[in-house]
């Protein structure tokens, strides 16, 4: 029990800090289980690679929450996320006949779904952010990184601090407009 917690903590900490050694250990130990899940259910090795990557990003984002703790083993959680992601991908590919070979008991279902939903929302916002002009993207990034307005003036060669502030609000307004204009937005907030 204690060992499981120690391993979980080590993995969570390693994922949170993007530690290559820990990530390698995770790939070595668990990728075969996910490859099997995907390839047994109409997927290819390339699909499996994407599923593993997406699953680890979902966990990476969860680890940003300081209170995040696993109540199951890491494999169970990782597998549950991968399974959800893969079946969502399959649904998108409109493969109606899907046989699910399921050996593991799934737990934390709502947690897993919430984490995946958050990731989808994040991807949606990020894709809209990338549609902004390069200058707007850079400006908003500097702001969220906590850079001072004075510094941004210098870094971006703007004429004044007032202009930087005004431009920031304009960029943010533009981003919100792009987001709300997308038909997927309504689906996302329902």
């Amino acid at each position: 029990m204690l060992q499981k917690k120690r391993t979980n903590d080590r993995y969570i900490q390693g994922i949170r800090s993007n530690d290559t050694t820990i990530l390698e250990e995770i790939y070595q130990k668990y990728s075969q289980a996910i490859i099997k899940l995907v390839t047994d259910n109409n997927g290819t090795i390339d699909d499996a690679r994407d599923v593993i990557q997406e699953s680890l990003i979902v966990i990476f984002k969860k680890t940003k929450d300081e209170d995040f703790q696993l109540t199951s083993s890491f494999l169970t959680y990782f597998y549950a996320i991968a399974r959800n992601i893969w079946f969502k991908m399959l649904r998108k590919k409109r493969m109606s006949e899907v046989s699910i070979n399921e050996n593991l008991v799934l737990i934390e279902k709502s947690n897993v779904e919430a984490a995946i939903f958050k990731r989808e929302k994040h991807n949606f916002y990020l894709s809209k952010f990338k549609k902004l002009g390069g200058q707007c993207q850079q400006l908003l990034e500097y702001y969220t990184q906590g850079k001072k307005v004075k510094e941004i003036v210098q870094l971006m060669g703007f004429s004044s601090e007032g202009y930087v502030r005004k431009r920031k609000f304009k960029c943010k307004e533009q981003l919100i407009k792009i987001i709300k204009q997308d038909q997927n937005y309504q689906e996302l907030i329902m």
Partner: protein
Amino acid sequence: MDKNNRQESIELYLQGKLEGQSLHDFEQQLKVDKTLQEDVTISKDVEEVINEVESEELFKENLLKLGGQYVVAQKPKTNATSFPLNWGIIILVVVVLAVVGYFFWQQQNISNSVEPEQIFASYYEPYPSSSITRSNVDTDEAYQNAIKAYNNEKYSEAIEGLTTKPADIPTQLLLSNCYLKVSPPETQKAIEALKSIAEGDSDLYSTTANWYLALAYLQNNQENEAKAIFKDLSQNGSNRYANLAKKILAEWK
């Protein structure tokens, strides 16, 4: 609410900087204005997304490398029973291959004794700065610039900023890598820094530190020290460094 100040008010509200009557008015408006509610939610979410863009991209980069390395198609297994067998031909092929292989191996031994510099050049990759936690990067501008310099391979420029965090092990790993990569290399400094990590309390980083320590020894022409570490690494589980160390030992005559 003045349309021009709308986004500004949302920002101030989210930052907790809206006060007094302005705050009261905003909250009243928020109760009844569905569009404003939406805009506040989006603003908040978007802020979070932008804040994580950089760290997520670094994480993804790491996963892309590892995915390419560990999630690969297995070679198809040949089915021995269904394969048409002609033992005479098979034995002949095996013998021919063995003879050719033997001569090839002899030639390799004669002409390709691997030099330490060759091993260093083939196996050295800078420690990824993506192992640095975002909180570190955010809090200190000099440090942030050092990381940028490191990523742009401006190692001598990076050194000063990286020396500001002597207690942070990933930072010390980056610093050691800078010492290995500056021109001329400051290998002795790298060896000292890496030794102290490898011998320290952190199990998490000791393998990584040992790997770079062995490479530093190679750069310093201390072949025996390097070999001893590669041997230890190769016997220590099946992580990436263990596999690489096995490969190096196999190549190194």
